């Protein structure tokens, strides 16, 4: 039998996690992408590589190291102790940190490419029209890079929903706190309750389908109305 309250809390948690993670990814990823696109620093490709690197670790292994980092003996524990906690693991905040690290390359790379495709021209023109670099960044670079942001957001959102190894490892599968939908489905698969897994996976696909399609279509409409 499907445990509806449990599933509902997992759905809510999943959406919260994916949304918060996507927002954090965009907030952190945008300046990184901008720097990677514009900097003339020699070591910037090194940074670009480091950003992509978490990808090559299996999620549970990455999760394991994150667990060590977030735990009482790692920097995460130090931060947690400021707020009276022992560890950032097993908390929603910890999940966000893990998901952000793991999905970062999917967000940074497309935005970086979009920034690069703009070239110097529009930014120079904005400067001659009296826009400060920050102003021009918001009023010219970001709107022109919209396809990159969209791709980054969709990939980051989808990957956070499906992402599982990291979340399981640093979240601890605690119902209502860190037990997200992917983990719930995993549990059903593990315990051979396949029908339940089918239902949940189907629902998740349908939901993600609607969300992503809606985002793509809305952006297309925006793309048409603001020329």
């Amino acid at each position, binding site marked *: 039998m499907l445990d509806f309250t449990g599933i509902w809390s997992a759905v809510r948690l999943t959406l919260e996690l994916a949304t918060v993670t996507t927002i954090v990814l965009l907030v952190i990823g945008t300046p990184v992408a901008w720097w990677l696109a514009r900097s003339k620093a020699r070591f910037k490709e090194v940074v670009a590589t480091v950003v992509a690197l978490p990808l090559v670790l299996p999620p549970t292994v990455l999760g394991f190291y994150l667990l060590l980092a977030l735990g009482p003996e790692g920097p995460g524990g130090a931060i947690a102790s400021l707020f009276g906690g022992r560890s950032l693991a097993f908390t929603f905040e910890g999940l966000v940190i893990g998901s952000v690290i793991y999905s970062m390359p999917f967000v940074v790379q497309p935005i970086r490419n979009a920034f690069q495709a703009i070239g110097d*021209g*529009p930014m*120079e*023109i*904005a*400067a*001659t*029209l*009296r*826009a*400060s*670099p920050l*102003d*021009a960044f918001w*009023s*010219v670079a970001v*709107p*022109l890079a*919209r396809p990159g942001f969209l791709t980054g957001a969709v990939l980051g959102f989808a990957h956070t929903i499906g992402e599982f190894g990291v979340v399981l490892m640093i979240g601890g599968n605690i119902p209502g706190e860190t037990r997200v939908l992917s983990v719930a489905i995993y549990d059903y698969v593990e315990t051979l309750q396949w029908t339940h897994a089918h239902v949940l996976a189907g629902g998740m696909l349908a939901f993600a389908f609607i969300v992503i399609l809606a985002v793509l279509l809305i952006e297309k409409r925006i793309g048409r109305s*603001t*020329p």
Partner: protein
Amino acid sequence: MSETAIALSLRATAGAFTLDVAFDAPMRGITALFGPSGCGKTTLLRCVAGLQRASGFVTVGGESWQDDDAAVFVPPHRRAVGYVLQETGLFPHLDVRRNLEYGYRRIAPGDRRVSFDEAVALLGVDGLLERSPTRLSGGQRQRVAIARALLTSPRLLLMDEPLASLDAASKRDILPYLERLHDELSMPVFYVSHAGDEVARLADHLVLIEDGGVHAAGPFSELSTRLDIARGHGAEVDTVIATRVARHDETWHLTELTFSGGTFNVARNGLPAGHPVRLRVLARDVSVTLDKQPGTSILNVFPATVDELVDEEPGQVLVRLDLNGSALLARITKKSAHSLSLKPGMRVFAQVKAVALV
């Protein structure tokens, strides 16, 4: 280097090309930058706008925009320039109206000296405001770009061949407006163009650039009668004469303009008596006769003295005439010069077939 001057000295390198220029220009009027393709005109404008780093200094009306000695480098967005690029860079994500407003809204209302509606009407872009720039023709894009630059009420307007893809009618509308800019708003303009007539009409000051360096710089009237430059710089040889409105002839729709050498009859204009008017006379429009001739359709005939004769392309002679203190260039065939036995000091008549008000 007064408060009323633009002074610059810039040195920049791009690949094998080196720009190395230094000149002064007045803070009023239009300074034409003239020179062959690839000589560095665009590079110069970019350095003035601060988009490209050069070493040296740029001072505009007492304001220092760059001064390496004092470690001053004002970033581009703090320089009150308007820049119309060679390839119109309209923002594709904004419609025409928002493109125009982009710079306009970034200027404090008190500093705005160009009104939105005026610029829009003048450049004929009123019907295009809701359009995406991707749906404009080449000339329409260029007009929008000009309006956008003007709307930042710049202290210095940089224009890189802004009228190149405009038809004659559009030019006829825009040119007088550019002239008014410097009359009314005292907005100096650096103007790059290959069109000799545009330059002659507009320019108060001329900077001839060759291969990254300044070949000559100075007031237009001086430079344009220096025969060596006139011959070299490839455009039509002409003379610009400063006159004043004397009276209007309502019957024949003519206006009489006086200058030291006499009176020009030109198409009637509405200027008040005494108003200064500049005339451009192409050397090829001036013919020389020994006597004042009756029964001709040519109205503008002046007594003159031959100053100097310079051989031109085979078969042609450039004659500098002195019209009681005003210089005038005439281009005639060698055969005519010979048959009239023209010599310096000789008294002749200059017939001017056509003039352009500039």
